[in-house]
């Protein structure tokens, strides 16, 4: 029965739930949609604050929900950081979404996100995954400005559904092999030799790959991102990916990757890095480009799993935070346009520096960081990952991965070329990013600076 520990252990989730209920009430009562956003922002901030505070306290109840849900300071830290990242997403949404539904759905999805790193059982993890993605199907569709949104939503739904089914299939095989729903069984199965366990681990990995968009399970991502609106694409590219990775961290636990899964972790991420970076070269849609970039980044992230199990969580969390922060920075400062296609078109960034130097500068920083160039946080993150890969003895794959990341530099630079070095391109009905979005950008910038200056301090806390 719920003890006080159990209550506190789920404090961030409770905040979110309260927020969801409040928002639903607001919606039902038809009270100001303007307030909805603020309620959501306050809720998410409170949840993030609570998580960070608990992390800082070192709050670690032994077993709030035995066999289902657990927390550690590191998990709180991760939740707190990711929830904090949702704040810019919310702020960004202001210009695209008038209604409160966005906030409700986002908060629901965040609730799912929070469940993932705490799951002790595949039951909770499955609910978390579904809670994470089901609202997003609606979110993709929500700012329905073009028929392609429905197409994107449907594709996402079908493939995500297939991922869920695959995940369940894996879980059920694992269940069959061990008779337990505990996530620990996955880690045990990694080193087990029997065929069913092996198939189970592979299926679960495939499902995670599907959700995280690893080649060859990536195909939904570019289409879904392009079809979604800017804030939703930003959310998908950053927090969803982060959540899936946290789930993956959770299932792996602290064991070192071995067996067939280790092979998958070598080959498919490498393929993703190369594929994502190559395919991004010729894109003309900003979101599609970011989608391919996110495919490549998913590759780096799964590379991080090769390393020492104990340091995996901090590596992955730092990476996703660094990656998300700069990604959100770029999305936040993208100039606004009534025409969604125009907003998305890379060519419309031409000469942005002349129109909006600040936005151009910050998007530039974001691109360079995504490219993994020093001194930006993306570099430290990449370093972290490849350090793990090398430490695990996979030097060749590290080198190949780095070369793959090299391919990516070009398309990030291309954005800079367009913004800084192309003649000014007057885009009809273009507006600078709104004040709210700029605020989101400012938050991200602060985080970027923090990550640049004191990466060691941050890593130590994850």
């Amino acid at each position, binding site marked *: 029965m719920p003890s006080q520990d159990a209550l506190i252990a789920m404090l961030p989730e409770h905040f979110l739930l309260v927020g969801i209920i409040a928002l639903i009430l607001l919606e039902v009562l038809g009270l100001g949609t303007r307030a909805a956003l603020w309620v959501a922002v306050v809720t998410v901030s409170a949840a993030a604050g609570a998580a960070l505070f608990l992390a800082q306290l070192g709050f670690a109840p032994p077993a709030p929900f035995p066999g289902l849900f657990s927390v550690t300071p590191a998990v709180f830290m991760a939740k707190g950081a990711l929830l904090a990242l949702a704040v810019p997403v919310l702020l960004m949404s202001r210009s695209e979404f008038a209604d409160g539904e966005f906030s409700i759905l986002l908060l629901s999805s965040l609730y799912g996100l929070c469940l993932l790193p705490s799951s002790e*059982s*595949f*039951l909770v993890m*499955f*609910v978390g995954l*579904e809670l994470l993605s*089901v609202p997003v*199907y*609606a979110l993709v*569709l929500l700012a*329905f400005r073009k*028929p*392609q949104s*429905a*197409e*994107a*939503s*449907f*594709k996402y*739904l*079908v493939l995500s*559904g*297939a991922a*869920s*089914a695959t995940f*369940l*299939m894996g*879980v*059920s*095989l694992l*269940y*069959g092999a061990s*008779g*337990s*729903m505990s996530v620990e069984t996955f880690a045990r199965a990694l080193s087990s030799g029997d065929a069913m366990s092996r198939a189970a681990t592979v299926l679960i990995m495939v499902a995670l790959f599907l959700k995280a968009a690893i080649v060859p399970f990536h195909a939904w991502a*570019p*289409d879904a991102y*392009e*079809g979604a609106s800017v804030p939703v694409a930003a959310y998908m590219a950053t927090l969803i990916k982060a959540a899936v990775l946290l789930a993956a961290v959770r299932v792996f636990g602290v064991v070192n990757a071995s067996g067939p899964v280790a092979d998958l972790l070598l080959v498919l991420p490498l393929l993703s890095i190369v594929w994502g970076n190559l395919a991004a070269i010729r*894109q003309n849609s900003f979101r*599609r480009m970011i989608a391919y970039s996110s495919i490549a980044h998913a590759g780096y992230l799964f590379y991080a799993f090769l390393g020492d199990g104990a340091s995996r969580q901090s590596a992955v969390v730092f990476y996703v935070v660094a990656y998300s922060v700069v990604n959100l920075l770029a999305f936040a400062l993208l100039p606004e346009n009534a025409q969604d296609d125009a907003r998305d078109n890379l060519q419309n960034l031409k000469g942005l520096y002349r129109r909006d130097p600040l936005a151009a500068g910050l998007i530039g920083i974001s691109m360079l960081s995504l490219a993994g160039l020093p001194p930006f946080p993306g570099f430290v993150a990449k370093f972290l990952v490849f350090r793990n890969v090398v430490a695990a003895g996979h030097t060749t794959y590290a080198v190949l991965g780095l070369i793959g990341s090299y391919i990516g530099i070009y398309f990030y630079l291309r954005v800079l070329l367009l913004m800084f070095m192309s003649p000014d391109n007057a885009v009809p009905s273009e507006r600078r990013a709104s004040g709210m979005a700029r605020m989101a950008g400012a938050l991200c910038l602060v985080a970027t600076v923090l990550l640049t200056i004191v990466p060691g301090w941050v890593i130590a806390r994850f």
Partner: protein
Amino acid sequence: MDRTQLLLGLSIALFALGLLGLIIRRNALVMLMCMELMLNGVNLSLVTFSERYADAGGAVLVFLVFIVATAEIALAIPIVLLLVRHTRSMDIARYTDLKG
């Protein structure tokens, strides 16, 4: 070949058939049904193991799958309707605006 293996085989076959359905069928609704088929396949194996181990965990998961499947269908149908409203076609192969 014992019963467990048979049921597991059936479960896998249903799962694979569902996936195959996603690949080869053009009709959006049929594709959704194929997704359901995949989930049903999973359920079968879960129930089988749950019964074998006499453990409620599997059954709980099956229960969750029911709910999730329902929710997904509830969400998917309006999306399909929205999709169809624009192109007047259930043929998913025609929806290739997003590509490249």
